[in-house]
């Protein structure tokens, strides 16, 4: 990262020399020397995830509203949900968050093999989660169209599942890119950080979803 230094004497500034008024009294920051903003991608990505959180908060609020205005919840006649597989899935997803965290440590030591290893394990765990969810879908006796319970259940878990799937694609991409020499280094590894952050996000969303749909 370059540190910029003021140079050249004052008044012949970009501002003043153009007949500028008063506020800008400026010189310094030689052209092309000032790309010192650093890497803003992680900041931008975090902002995106905050925005994404609002999508889920909106959907959660809708679910909570349905629950709070319903006379009985779940509506009469809704079959009991299978709890074992979702519980195992939850454990897998939380554990996978710990696994993917290893990658962030590994890359700081320039250990690409470690990165790939932890990404691969996380990817397999994520795939197991999706498989478990699909198995659950296949064995449920209600569908998307069988009333408000089915609608909220499938759309919320489906939305989350879609995010898990995107996470798997991201991991695959990072693993593929890590084969290229010097693509990720100890200093610059936005892809790894972002994927890992995204995965934590997906994980936290699931915890709330699990509580809302299966426990409470």
């Amino acid at each position, binding site marked *: 990262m370059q540190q910029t230094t003021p140079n050249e004497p004052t008044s012949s500034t970009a501002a003043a020399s*153009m007949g500028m*008024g*008063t506020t*800008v009294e400026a010189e310094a920051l030689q*052209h092309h020397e000032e790309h010192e903003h650093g890497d803003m991608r992680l900041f931008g990505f975090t902002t995106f995830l905050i925005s994404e959180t609002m999508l889920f908060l909106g959907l959660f*609020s809708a679910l909570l509203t*349905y629950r709070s205005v319903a006379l009985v919840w779940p*509506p009469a006649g809704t079959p009991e949900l299978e709890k074992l597989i979702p519980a195992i899935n939850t454990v897998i997803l939380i554990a996978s968050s710990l696994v993917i965290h290893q990658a962030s440590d590994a890359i700081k030591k320039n250990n690409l093999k470690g990165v790939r290893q932890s990404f691969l394990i996380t990817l397999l765990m994520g795939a197991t989660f999706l498989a478990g969810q699909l198995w659950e879908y296949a064995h449920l006796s209600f569908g998307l169209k069988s009333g408000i319970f089915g*609608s909220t259940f499938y759309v919320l878990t489906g939305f989350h599942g879609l995010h898990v799937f995107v996470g798997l694609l991201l991991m695959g991409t990072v693993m593929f890119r890590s084969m290229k020499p010097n693509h990720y280094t100890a200093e610059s590894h936005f892809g790894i950080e972002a994927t890992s952050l995204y995965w934590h996000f997906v994980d936290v969303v699931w915890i709330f979803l699990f509580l809302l749909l299966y426990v409470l």
Partner: protein
Amino acid sequence: MVDALQRFPEMEPPAGWRTYFSFSTDHKVIGIQYLVTTFFFYMIGGFLAMLIRAELLTPASDFVDPAVYNSLFTIHATIMIFLWIIPALAGFGNYLVPLMIGARDMAFPRLNALSFWLIPPGGVLLMSSFFWGAAGAGWTSYPPLSIQDPKLGEAIWISSVAILGTSSIMAALNFFTTILKMRTKGMDLFRMPLFVWSVLVASGITLLGTPVLTGAVILLGFDLLVGTSFFNPTGGGNPVVYQHMFWFYSHPAVYIMVLPAMGMISEILPIFARKPIFGYRAIAISSISISVLGFVVWAHHMFTSGTPEWMRMFFMITSMVIAVPTGIKVFSWVATLWGGKIRFTSAMLFALGFVSLFVIGGLSGIVLASVPVNIHVHNTYFVVAHLHYVLFGGSVFAIYSGFYCWFPKMTGRLLNEFWGKIHFFLTFVGFNLCFLPMHTLGLQGMPRRVADYDPQFTNLNVIVSLGGFLLGISTLPFIVNVIWSWSKGKEAGPNPWNALSLEWATSSPPPVENFEKLPVVYAPPYWYGSTLEEVKKAALTGGRVGKHRAGN
């Protein structure tokens, strides 16, 4: 400059019309792409409004089929909000924010180009729905009406809103990062021009609000196409949940549409009154409080939706409280004008038009926030009058004002002042003829969104329609002025208005990388009416300039 061009060939201004049809990543090209594209959609939306007014010239439904009429006002509003005001302000933001904070471009230039290039397909998709029966449930698209047949038009409406929402989120993310991370040396948060403040705050609203709208329309799409029962009571759903989700975004969206407009006015008034802005910090902070309050007022759109009493009370109070930060801005603007050497340029006329019309719109907003009155005038023309005073008298006047102020920066040429003034007077007269009588119509009980009306309302409706047609005509001098001045207008030079913010510290149009050297900022942006020496001295000692305390 000559020297700079030799050293850095990329320093030339973006040239050639082809640039504007390319996936350019230059924020200035993208800004102009936004402005021209959205103005095109504005003309289409305006044309639809003319058709609406043609239908309403007579009490009978005789001009178009009532179903077509429903589509007309639905698509009119959708265009004006999602394809004109929001993206047009994003266009100004794109052009001005990096220049104003002394940056070379936006934080994520390719994402920026993508945000823009989602708009034409989103808009064309929306227009295309007229060929197969456009959505006709109003821009609010309330179920159960919106999930009846015909389904295709509504599905298209949902897709284009989702596309345009995505574009808007990406643009907001970019502004947010750019403003927080890319300010040049010395550009503290409280030295930023107020327009930059307003874009920062509006971006925050977009980031937090738009995803909820996306969620709402996705659920609506599921109900429409798959047959889920989110908003369908027969399956245990609840149509009011849609209204909550919709207005959770769409009320803050009013501030997405008006805060950057207010920001532009806060730039333009000091320039043409030759005085520092009054209450710089108060205006900046009032934007933040408007954005926070804006998220807790949404149910005032739903006072007649079976909303419980305690909730109506809560939302009535919060809605009225919004008048406080808004009032702070208005009084600060008036105080800025007080004793100023006002230059009545076209930009200034539109800015003064903004202040006066926005005040009327704001006051009728307080009237509407009151539950008893609201129940009486809900879904009448009073609401139509109110929202047009805010969004046309407010936002569109500010956009016009911005065009006159920054067109010289964008093109290097001034717009013709004589025709600018003609444009202003036609717009101002047309606007008030069109929307002022609507207050009366609404109070007399004329419902909105209906193709025919009781004959007792005929006279005022004829006046409204004539005002509407005059508004249509008023755009002609502007269009001709822009086209003519773009190639033949008077050369502007870098700083035709003697303005002080950073965008005027570079050539017009600015070179590709904006500044030969990035400026370093020593003082706030509004020290008008002081000499260079006074400001230098004050900047060095951290003191005042003459009688003026520069707000900071």
